[in-house]
């Protein structure tokens, strides 16, 4: 894997590890950005890992663009050889699939959709050759997902499904982006799921909502007092389908600021995962329940 570097104007270097998405590309991007962080290069102001690429923002008054580029290129060999493993966290995220709020929103934007006669979930089931929305929900929620990027808007995680490529759910984005998406919508576009951290525009298909806040600029939510954004690249997520009653109970707990998210330490090794995906995932899911 050879990294393609390009200047983004006079203040950014953009690095594409791979044109296509893979966990290998993600880990190369992560080890490169970790190496840049550790190197403490003067003039570097932002280090942003992404799914299969990364971006460095710099002050060209402090470092010559060409010098920074050379420095990054010199790190490439070590990064691609580094061990693709992580000490990370697994989180259980409750999801009310087919909720009334995303339903109301998707009905308002039907003319921007590939199939105005179906809901987003029905369409997603159809294009993935799954029989029904329920089958799609089963495929979406049975195996864990990997946070391969945080961004778009504050704290929004991009999630990559931890299954063989041929089983990965893929759904096109809306034909034209919506101007509205409910806060905490579970969305999906291309091969990525996401959680919309704030209300706003969006182009991903909408499947449900979570009651669990993931971004709190006021830093009042108990588990977001230190960091206003919950997610970091490398986190692992397991969706947990919940009923309307369970959703309402969770909202009540969130409002009273006594909601306790299920977040457990976990380790992840890409080599082990590639050897035995089902076994690795089973172990990760056991970790949720403290085993």
């Amino acid at each position: 894997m050879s990294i393609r570097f390009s200047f983004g104007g006079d203040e950014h270097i953009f690095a594409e590890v791979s044109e296509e998405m893979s966990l290998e590309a993600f880990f190369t991007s992560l080890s490169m950005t970790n190496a840049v962080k550790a190197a403490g290069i003067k003039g570097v102001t932002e280090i942003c890992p992404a799914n299969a690429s990364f971006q460095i923002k710099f002050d060209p008054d402090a470092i010559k663009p060409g010098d920074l580029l050379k420095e990054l290129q010199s790190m490439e060999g070590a990064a691609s050889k580094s061990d693709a493993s992580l000490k990370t966290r697994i989180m259980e995220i409750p999801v009310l699939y087919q909720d009334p709020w995303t339903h109301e929103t998707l009905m308002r934007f039907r003319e921007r959709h590939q199939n105005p006669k179906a809901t987003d979930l029905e369409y997603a089931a159809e294009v993935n050759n799954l029989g029904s929305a329920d089958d799609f929900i089963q495929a979406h929620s049975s195996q864990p997902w990997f946070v391969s990027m945080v961004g778009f808007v504050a704290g929004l995680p991009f999630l990559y499904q931890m299954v063989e490529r041929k089983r990965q759910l893929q759904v096109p984005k809306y034909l034209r982006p919506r101007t509205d998406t409910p806060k905490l919508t579970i969305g999906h576009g291309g091969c990525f799921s996401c959680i919309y951290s704030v209300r706003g525009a969006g182009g991903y298909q909408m499947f449900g909502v979570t009651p669990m806040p993931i971004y709190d600029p006021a830093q009042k939510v108990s588990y977001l007092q230190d960091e206003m954004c919950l997610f970091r690249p490398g986190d692992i997520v397991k969706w947990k389908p919940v009923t309307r009653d369970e959703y309402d109970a969770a909202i009540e707990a969130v409002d009273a600021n006594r909601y306790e998210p299920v977040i457990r330490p976990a380790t992840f090794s890409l080599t082990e995962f590639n050897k035995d995906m089902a076994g690795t995932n089973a172990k990760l899911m056991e970790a949720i329940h403290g085993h």
Partner: protein
Amino acid sequence: MAINVISPGLSTTVQDLGRPGYYHLGIPLSGGMDRFALRAANMLVGNDEGAAVLEAVFLGPELEFTAPATVAVTGGDLPPKLNGEERAGWEAFPVKAGDRLSFCFLKGGARAYIAVSGGIDVPVKLGSRSTYTLGALGGHEGRALKAGDSLAVGQGAGGKGSVPANLRRMPGNPAELRMLPGLYWHRITETAGKQFFADTWKVAPEADRIGYRFRGGTALNFVAREQPFGAGSNPSNIVDACYPYGSIQVPGGTEPIVLHRDAVSGGGYMMLGCVISADMDLIGQLQPHSPARFVQVSMDQALAARHDRQATLQRVRAHLDR
């Protein structure tokens, strides 16, 4: 000292030089869209150049002061009025307790910067007082001002003087936005690349702090390829990546969008390159429907333009004895 908001204008927000360091979490730079004008406004009233000011777009607010201070309005041609009497832009003037600042209609540019000696004293969030409205972060309660708001102002010594017209920076007509091709430039054909620079574009109504959309030019032709796994089916799609500040994305290959201070930090559309740092201020002064062209430059030219902008700022400092 406080400022009472009598009427808020179209969308007036508290801004400083921005909030770098959190882009990896999706939290944008924020800060003034025209940071040259923001710095000049602060210099005129004797503040640190990075003090928080008010950024007004298209339509100015009406404000009441509760104590004496020095005020200056820079940026677009949005002439200030003190107690109904027109005052010059880019010039410091004193205000007394009970004085009201309002604005004439916009005559040119798009955004005005209202600096008050002592600076707007909203809480610092992640190192900045800038407002990021989409994320309800910073500024006054994370939002644009509303009638009835009251803003605290710090203590300041005050300043005097004016910035002569030859030391101000405003876009031409058409605006010429210098741009360094790169990022996913290789995804479009050579002919499409030439046409992109040859066309005169127009600012679309969708032009705000997140980004400026341009229309009226030729749709791009892409180099044919099988779309990579995870990218999405449209030829303008890429595997979701970071979007640099100033990057020009072209969803569907039709209308370029230049991301600005409240940029979405990433997404799945290819980008042609970036508008150079020196010209980002100019975009903040463009109104919808105004014509603009993209001008190709090299890295060396981009750096020279950056130094020119800095040199002009230095001349403003020298002129104001700072």
